[in-house]
């Protein structure tokens, strides 16, 4: 049995699947009966999506042009 404080401390590790089986089971047992920690879990998941969603793979044309040119000009 773990407390809210312990569960919340390990939520991100739980989402990252970097906790051991025993900790994972304890967190899942806690989440099954604690609405507040479920809210924290949902927010942690949302925050992960939020960071991932800020990735931007659009390269300005002039930058792409210069980097491509660098590649073409590479000599051993």
């Amino acid at each position, binding site marked *: 049995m773990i407390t809210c404080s312990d569960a*919340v401390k390990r939520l*991100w*590790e739980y989402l*990252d699947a*970097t906790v051991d089986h025993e900790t994972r089971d304890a967190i899942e047992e806690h989440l099954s009966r604690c609405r507040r920690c479920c*809210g*924290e879990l949902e*927010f*942690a998941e*949302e*925050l*992960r999506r*939020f*960071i*991932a*969603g*800020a*990735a*931007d*793979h*659009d*390269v300005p044309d002039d*930058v*792409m042009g*210069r*980097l*491509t040119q*660098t*590649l*073409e000009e*590479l000599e*051993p």
Partner: protein
Amino acid sequence: MDPSATDRQEEFRRLAREQIPRLYSLARHLIGDDAEDAVQDCLLKAFQRYDQLHDATAASGWLTSILVNCCRDRGRSRSRQPEHVDFTDVEEFSLFRTIAYEDPFPYSDTLHLDFLREFGKEDVHAVLMRLPELYRTPVVLVYMDGYLAREVAAMFGDPLGTVLARLHRGRKLFEKLLWEYAEENHLLQEVAR
């Protein structure tokens, strides 16, 4: 020139060209305005060491590790002082609880989501750039670029526990900086909604 060497160079160019958008995005979040220079450094070093890459499917991680080191070199030359953070308050901070307690949007049924919706991509970038490099790198690699913590550990020869500890501190600090950024930039004003 040896035809096989020419083929290898062309293979490298093709492979690297496909990776440029991802590498540039990564560099932008790791080193900011020096991103283009860092990617140039990375392409040059990777070209020189291409014979060390024996499996093309590992190219993405291999290029990433070279890029991160290029960004670190550039970061070190920019600033000689290691960035110090006092984690006393950071460890106790919870963005979830702070949003609930401060209740910036009293009429919202989705308070926490509304808080995150106030941030554009450039805002997130600005907050990430406030993280010290030691914590920013694992946060960006894992949560933005999708690497596993153990892959990051293997990439740089760090113990997994070290990477996990930096990720933990990086996340906590990111949450606190997110809240501070929102306050500084007046993202929490109900009148703006």
